[in-house]
């Protein structure tokens, strides 16, 4: 745990960070159950275990900064300030959801909080985030765009094209790679000749930084200077967060490609457990307060579920509405 940064937070702020991690965790765990019981159709891509990356990154962003997310995006949306109720309603396919029920788990956005959309295509969002950074630069708003993607996406052409373009034009972007070691079932080491994605930054002349993605404050500590760099016009940074998803790629994934030992070892580094421990150690919270936070997170998720259950489905005329801006 990066003690320096943790202690720079006030107790309230620190508890807030834990709450965000807990909310993301509780939300995902509930979603899995709801998929099992059929309330949520299709599948889900649980973010369980990776919460520190989203929360840590957003900690280093200003509220008016922008993010681009991935198919495994519930965590990013909640960390950026998304509303669990609207998110849950969307997963239920209800009209009150973020997409009116039309997007679903992989296609979420909340433009009002600077979340420009999660993306169902691996690497699909990277150029879009790059374009948003271009726009921000051209309009001189001083914003920064954080672009999330996984290790698998770094082999897509769009990743390379985007970093190249961003580096040449010095765009105010921070490329946050969540290297959870597996693209679906394929180990990263089988599809990439280099071990650390951060090294790819050198090909584009930009800084590449690795960080322990299970340590929320460490992530924040590394994203902050990258954000500053971007905001001051010095261009993009590639940040590789070494992380792990505790569960499968998607709901149905039996994880036959990973060993139980490996999974257990990463579980030891659960970001929530670690932050709890740190907060206790540093006297930033009592055990009772920590439990209260956990309950608060669960309550928020309960609220979201009941909101989603109560919400109506979309009307039939919503089917063909909203394809174009003009009708």
């Amino acid at each position, binding site marked *: 745990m990066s003690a320096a940064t943790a202690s720079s937070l006030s107790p309230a702020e620190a508890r807030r960070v834990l709450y965000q991690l807990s909310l993301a965790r509780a939300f995902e765990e509930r979603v899995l159950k709801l998929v099992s019981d059929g309330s949520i159709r299709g599948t889900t891509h649980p973010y369980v275990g990776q919460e520190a990356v989203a929360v840590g990154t957003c900690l280093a962003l200003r509220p008016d900064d*922008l993010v*681009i997310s991935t198919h495994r995006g519930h965590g990013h949306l909640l960390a950026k300030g998304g509303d669990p109720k609207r998110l849950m309603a969307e997963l239920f396919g209800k009209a009150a*959801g*973020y*997409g*009116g*029920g*039309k*997007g*679903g788990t992989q*296609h*979420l*956005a*909340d*433009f*009002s909080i600077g979340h*420009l*959309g999660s*993306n*169902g*295509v691996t690497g*699909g969002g*990277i*150029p*879009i*985030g*790059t*374009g*948003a*950074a*271009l*726009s*921000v630069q*051209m*309009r001189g708003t001083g914003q920064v*765009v954080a672009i999330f993607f996984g290790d698998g996406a770094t082999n897509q*052409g*769009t990743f390379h*094209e*985007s970093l*190249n*373009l961003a580096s*040449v*034009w010095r765009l105010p972007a921070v490329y946050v790679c969540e290297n959870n070691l597996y693209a679906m079932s394929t180990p990263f080491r089988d599809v990439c000749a280099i071990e650390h994605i951060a090294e790819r930054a050198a090909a584009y002349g930009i800084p590449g930084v690795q960080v322990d993605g299970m340590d929320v404050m460490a992530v924040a500590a590394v994203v902050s200077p990258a954000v500053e760099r971007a905001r001051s016009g010095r261009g993009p940074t590639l940040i590789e967060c070494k992380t792990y998803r505790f569960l499968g790629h998607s709901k149905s994934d039996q994880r036959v490609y990973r060993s139980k030992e490996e999974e257990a070892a990463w579980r030891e580094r659960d970001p929530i457990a670690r932050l709890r421990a740190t907060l206790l150690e540093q006297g930033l919270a009592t055990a009772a307060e920590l439990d209260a936070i956990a309950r608060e997170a669960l309550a928020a998720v309960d609220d979201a579920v009941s909101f989603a259950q109560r919400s109506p489905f979309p009307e039939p005329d919503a089917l063909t*509405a*909203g*394809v*174009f*801006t*003009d009708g």
Partner: protein
Amino acid sequence: MRELTYWQGVQEALREEMVRDPRVFLMGEDIGVYGGAFGATRGLFAEFGPERVRCTPISEATIVGAGIGAALTGMRPVVEIMFMDFITLAMDQIANHAAKFRYMYGEQARVPLVIRTPAGGGRSYGATHSQSLEAWFLHVPGLKVIAPATPADVKGLLKSAIRDDNPVLCVEHKRLYATAGPVPDGEVTVPIGQAMIRRQGTDVTLVTYSYYVGVALQAAEALARDGINAEVVDLRTLAPLDTETVLDSVRKTGRLICIEEGTRTGGVGAEVAARAVEEAYEYLDAPIRRIAAPDIPIPFSPVLEEAALPKLDDIVQTVLELLQR
């Protein structure tokens, strides 16, 4: 009214819109000092500078993707894909993202992106630099597609496209760039989604767009000497298709021929023909015919390429066959 070339029509549209709205900017390969592979952006770099006329690396997917991101956040980019053949590299961004964001994100998103691309063969450029792929994009809901045939229309439609808050693909035929025509003075836009009857007629309806409008008109002239009066409908916009204009014409003439440069199977003509049968069946006095390229890659050798692309004579012969003369 002035006489302009088609590429001047493009250039003027871009220029006027960039002057009118500071959010409009251009991205593409070699669009700067070089003026674009077909000269359409000539002079714009000198006038607007590198901030607004951005020469990109060869990264079609990211040219379009960055365009989408900029469009999502308040800019109005016009990106160029140098040859329509290369649009394949950007298909994911166009089909899965630009066209769908508004719908998927519950109408939160606006993607006022224009993608311009030169298309078509006849220049011996070979199979990967000569295609007409517009038919693919009819199959992507959420995307508008325009294919202007004249300098006035390319200027007017491109202006409309830039002002449209939806993603618009503008297909410009390479062989049209040097053609000239009258362009009205002043602030004139052409509405998207509206076909135009280029020639009134009573005996057969020729539905076409882009380069083949001129050829169809020549065919109509030739047919007129045989006493056959052909009506030529220039679609101008391929998506959304102005079905009513086509149907009105078919109801009048009872005979429909769809003409395009792209390959026959699954072409634009197939869609037009299907709609005509669905909605004007009782007015058809003859089978519907399609004139298009055969289902082959476009060959290089001039004699083969010439044979591959539909010709004036094909149109005339098909009409004569339909009318049994």
